[in-house]
């Protein structure tokens, strides 16, 4: 312990340690941010390979490549890895890098905990991936793991899955506490809450969501563990339990969780669009209020995932109305982004391309979300590919595009080098086309009646499935360009200026590129 402390305190004066220990013991927000981002990129590729396995099997009707048992494991792992391994760590990584720099702090408030919250993740996900090789296979019950399929009828490896979920939850909570502490305590003098950059605002709200719902997830998996190993009957009807209870608890976590995956994206886009429109963000205050109301509303709409479980009429009505209500603040955000572009002076570098695509495609995802909110019609959409199309429109061109936009936007700041702009644009266009070819047809096959999570389908769904699979491979392989571009940029290239983008605003651009190891050794002044 004392050597650790020493390293930390010498760090403070001389910059990073050398070799592997720099990464193992580091308490530096930039190192940890980098590790989070690399981890999430690796998980994105792993989860992507699983998606491509699914899409390859669904290229044609009939069973060609994999058996239904393995197919279910692939969909489950793909969903879990993308949600918990790719999107969430990427946002935490961005927060680690940017929040201290944006509020004018030298580091995160709780640096040592920061190290822990990262290093838990590789262990959690190794364990989760290992379940695939266990007897009986890995989790095969969907990322929503509805009981009793995930309890009474689950493979033995579910115990490891539960343990992995616990670890991820602990990591998320520690990360969230750290971000809240940083934002509350380390803001530069003069930076009032209503002067904070929107990315910081959205992350603050996200962090509160995380702290509120991660224990709920922990609770539900613990109840599963009890049912499986200790003879309780929370979810086992034969023992007096209630399978629907599982769904209520799960979605009380799960619905805010989907906002955890999109609120930081709102923040990112609200940074990028003003930069490249060379105009201040339209409606800063209403953005803050809209984000907060979305967060609050997200706690009262969970049962819109359960319209078909057999709720009483009054419940259906309540959840329908509140869900529809979320469209209002979300609409306000979209209108504000467009008003920011309106009468600006726009240029379209890669980050802006991704941000604009985000606005368009996320809005399309929002429209299908609105359709899903109409309870009677949801009876037809629920658990079909229409839903798969909906959530991929908000997750892939939503969350993932915003992460890519953020990466291109801040990469010159992080590395001190410019990335290759034409390769970035190529990556954007291939991804944009790929995403739409993949997910747009899913609306059609969903409406035509194809249930989700099936390894084989009736003949009338064949054509669009083929199209979707082609798009998925296009999208998947385009990501190699992304990785190549990042690696090249990290290695060298044209030097970046401090204020990388002509229209950039905010404290992070007052630092050198790359920034010093401890961001602000003197608190900056904010007017």
């Amino acid at each position, binding site marked *: 312990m004392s050597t650790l402390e020493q390293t930390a305190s010498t760090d403070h004066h001389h910059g990073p340690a050398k070799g592997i220990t720099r990464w193992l013991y580091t308490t530096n927000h930039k190192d940890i941010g980098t590790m989070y981002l690399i981890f999430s990129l690796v998980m994105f590729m792993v989860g992507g390979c699983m998606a491509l396995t699914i899409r390859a099997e669904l290229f044609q009707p009939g069973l060609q490549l994999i058996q239904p048992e393995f197919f279910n494991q692939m969909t489950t792992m793909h969903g879990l890895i993308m949600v918990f391994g790719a999107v969430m760590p990427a946002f935490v990584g961005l927060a680690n890098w940017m929040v201290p720099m944006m509020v004018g702090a030298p580091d995160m408030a709780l640096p040592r905990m920061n190290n822990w919250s990262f290093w838990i993740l590789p262990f959690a996900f190794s364990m989760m991936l290992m379940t695939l090789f266990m007897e009986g296979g890995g989790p095969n019950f969907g990322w929503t793991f509805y009981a009793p399929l995930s309890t009474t009828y689950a493979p033995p490896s579910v115990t490891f899955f539960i343990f992995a979920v616990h670890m991820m939850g602990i990591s998320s909570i520690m990360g969230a506490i750290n971000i809240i502490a940083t934002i509350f305590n380390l803001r530069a003098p003069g930076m009032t809450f209503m002067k904070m950059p929107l990315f910081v605002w959205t992350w603050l709200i996200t962090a509160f969501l995380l702290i509120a719902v991660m224990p709920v997830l922990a609770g539900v998996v613990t109840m599963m563990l009890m049912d499986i190993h200790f003879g309780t009957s929370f979810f086992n009807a034969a023992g007096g339990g209630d399978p629907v209870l599982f769904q209520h608890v799960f979605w009380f976590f799960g619905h805010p969780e989907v906002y955890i995956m999109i609120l930081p994206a709102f923040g990112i886009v609200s940074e990028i669009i003003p930069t490249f429109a060379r105009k201040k963000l339209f409606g800063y205050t209403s953005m803050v209020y809209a984000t907060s109301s979305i967060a609050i509303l997200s706690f009262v709409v969970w049962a819109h995932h359960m319209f078909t479980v*057999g709720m009483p009429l009054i419940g259906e009505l309540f959840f329908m109305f509140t869900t529809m209500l979320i469209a209002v603040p979300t609409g306000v955000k979209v209108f504000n982004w467009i008003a920011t572009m309106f009468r600006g002076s726009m240029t379209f570098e890669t980050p802006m391309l991704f941000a604009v695509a985000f606005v368009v495609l996320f809005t399309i995802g929002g429209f299908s979300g609105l359709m899903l909110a109409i309870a009677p019609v949801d009876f*037809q959409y629920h658990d*079909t590919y229409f839903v798969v199309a909906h959530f991929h429109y908000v997750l892939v061109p939503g969350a993932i595009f915003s992460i890519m936009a953020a990466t291109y936007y801040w990469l010159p700041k992080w590395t001190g080098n410019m990335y290759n702009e034409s390769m970035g644009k190529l990556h954007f266009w291939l991804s944009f086309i790929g995403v739409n070819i993949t997910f747009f047809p899913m609306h059609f096959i969903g409406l035509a009646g194809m249930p989700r999570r099936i390894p084989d389908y009736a003949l009338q769904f064949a054509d669009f499935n083929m199209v979707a699979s082609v798009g998925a491979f296009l999208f998947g392989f385009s990501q190699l360009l992304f990785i190549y571009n990042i690696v090249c940029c990290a290695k060298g290239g044209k030097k970046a200026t401090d204020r990388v983008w002509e229209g950039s605003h905010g404290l992070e651009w007052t630092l050198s590129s790359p920034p010093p190891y401890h961001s602000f050794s003197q608190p900056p002044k904010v007017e």
Partner: protein
Amino acid sequence: MRCNRLALLLSGFVISPAVFAEWEVNLVRGVTEISHAIFDLHMIIFYVCVAIAVVVFGVMLWSIIYHRKSRGAKAQHFHEHLWVEVLWTIVPFGILVAMAVPASQTLIQMYDKSEADINIQVTGYQWKWRYQYLDQDIDFFSNLSTPQDQINNKATKGENYLLEVDQPLVIPVGKKVRFLITANDVIHSWWVPALAVKQDAIPGFINEAWTVIDEPGIYRGQCAELCGRDHGFMPIVVDARSEADYQQWLASQNQAQEAEQAAADQTWTMEELITKGEAVYQTSCMACHQANGQGIPGAFPGLVNTPLMSGDGLEHARIVVHGRAGTAMQAFGEQLSDVDLAAVITYERNAWGNAGGMITPQQIKQLKEE
């Protein structure tokens, strides 16, 4: 010349109805009052979304084209505008309220629980449906009837690939049919798009749904809740018939039951049982224990050369009849007739090199009475 032909081809894609049929793009309108109401709601909200999209994306496109730096656009300095912001909060809210009214009406209509003419209990099993006509003495299981060879690409796929069953649910048109929906093991969901009925089947709960079908016809659907490995192979076929045809079907069901009784009392040779048993194995057992009887290690036990196969036949029969609590092995006693049970057990005991002797329908009958 080339171009012309291409244009012709493209227009063919757009116009030809045959091509449209393959590229299904919208919800079915269905054959019930509720399904029509739902379809209309779906179209309204879709058009509302399209209208908003045109406005929003239009403004955006305009800005992208005309407010570019490369065209010499200078950035304006406004970044707040109270009444615009108030307006674009209130207008969408108004649209939503306008949408919520018809949506609530339809929902209330769907919850009309008044007296039904016919009551059918629908139970989801891994991976088949059971239909019990509560007012008649009719009770049967409905299994996927698509041959394994089609699924494994060894035979050409039929027209209703994966959407066909051995015994469809038969109901009369013009009558209010109430479904009491539940499940035996995990959660399933009973969904027929043309009826706009989708209701989860949950163990320990009985959910209610109902329909009145306007036109005779065959309507197909699938289980809509992930329920394990064969979730994709759990079709639902509803055969809606005129009242007269329905009555005739009821009568034929009763005859079939008598025939089954007679079969159980007759004497069967081992060969007969094995032949019959193979077919039963394929519909009821193969999904888990596999065609080669090897099972799936860690998930489903194998049946080849195990102590159970060569040991006491009655012990084997007991497991098939009563199932194994807490595992995926169901109690087949109520699902299969005595003859089918005897046949499939005899088949298992003599397939794949096993040599475990035979079990008769009479033994099964005794076992059930124990």
